[in-house]
């Protein structure tokens, strides 16, 4: 429910390790709302979300340790450099990343040579890449990605695809809201289409 409007109802599904769900639907169909409910930021009007057969409301912080959510807004601080952004956001998530690991992750995201530039000098796509670099160093099992492909070039979209494939091969789960078709060669591919 958003305002007085019912976005979706009767939604019931369970996902096992190595599953990829592509969440599609027109603008305003509730993709973001569903992802925010799944990550625990919003509470559903009715129903519950279970993680390893426990209600995520009762798991609280233990659930957050298993989830990485990347939203519309990249969550990158303008005043901090790409390197600082990555290290601090990981430290706050309880994973302290070594200097080399952080630099390697940024290099793989194509940000070599720009690690120490304040993020306000980066382009929109590059800031998005800084946010995505978190996926390389976090060790969470559930990824919830909301429109992370916006303002990314073709190379970066390919990179995101291979990141998700690696994640699925490790036994992770990924739910990705996107308008672009994403065909993966790994894991179980599923599609959830929301309608207005």
């Amino acid at each position, binding site marked *: 429910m958003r305002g007085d409007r019912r976005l979706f109802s009767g939604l019931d599904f369970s996902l096992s390790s190595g599953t990829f769900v592509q969440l599609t639907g027109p603008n305003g169909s509730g993709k973001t709302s569903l992802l925010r409910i799944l990550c625990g930021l*919003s509470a559903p009007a009715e129903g519950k979300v279970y993680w390893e057969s426990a209600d995520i409301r009762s798991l609280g912080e233990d659930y957050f340790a298993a989830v990485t959510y990347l939203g519309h807004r990249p969550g990158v601080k303008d005043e901090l450099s790409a390197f600082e952004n990555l290290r601090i956001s990981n430290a706050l998530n309880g994973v302290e990343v070594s200097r080399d690991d952080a630099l390697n992750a940024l290099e793989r995201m194509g940000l070599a040579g720009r690690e120490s530039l304040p993020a306000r000098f980066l382009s929109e796509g590059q800031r998005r890449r800084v946010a995505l670099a978190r996926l390389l160093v976090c060790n969470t099992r559930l990824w919830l990605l909301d429109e992370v492909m916006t303002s990314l070039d073709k190379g970066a979209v390919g990179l995101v695809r291979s990141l998700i494939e690696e994640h699925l091969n490790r036994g992770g789960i990924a739910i990705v809201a996107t308008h672009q078709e994403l065909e993966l060669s790994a894991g179980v591919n599923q599609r959830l289409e929301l309608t207005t």
Partner: protein
Amino acid sequence: MLRWIVWRDLMLAWRRRSDMLSTVFFFVIVVSLFPLGIGPELQLLRSIAPGVVWVAALLASMLSLGRLFANDYQDGTLEQLLLTPQPLYLVVAGKVLAHWIIAEVPLVLIAPLVGVQFDLSRETLWVLFVSLLVGTPILSLIGAVGAALTLGLRGGGVLISILILPLYIPALIFGAGAVEASIIGMTPAPHLYLLGAFAIVSLLFAPWAASAALRISLE
């Protein structure tokens, strides 16, 4: 964890030093306007000094409170903070501690200097310093609740003043009371003890209330 969040906020504040300095300048200017406006009537200046300095500190902290969560809210880092695997009140406590260091400690340090304009004795200046040192954490703590409640609202700046300034009244009464007691030659200790008790109570409840308000604001 607490260390990281404090360090992060201090670093962000350092890279935006102008925000921090504007709060201090506001405080200094507001306090200095009174002696300039009233003129050299020492008796009158001495008697209004505690109230003026404390009210200026309250107003100055209003200026910086709006930014406590708003910047993180705009760029999406607040969502990420809500999803960290630590109790949210620890995150809030870290941010409040950083806010106190950034916005209140400079006021506490400079208050004895601006207090000289009111012809306060050395002993009274010392009491002024201690009362602000004990009292300003209350401003950051209670202010955080208001900042969390008004997050993302239009005109949040005015709303936060209406919401929070009344809650500052006990801190104002006992803080200014301690300085007044010292001016008339009495011991400021009872006022300071009450101020300290109020600070402890807000330390217990405010981070918890602010984190509940944040969850509602971001839902």
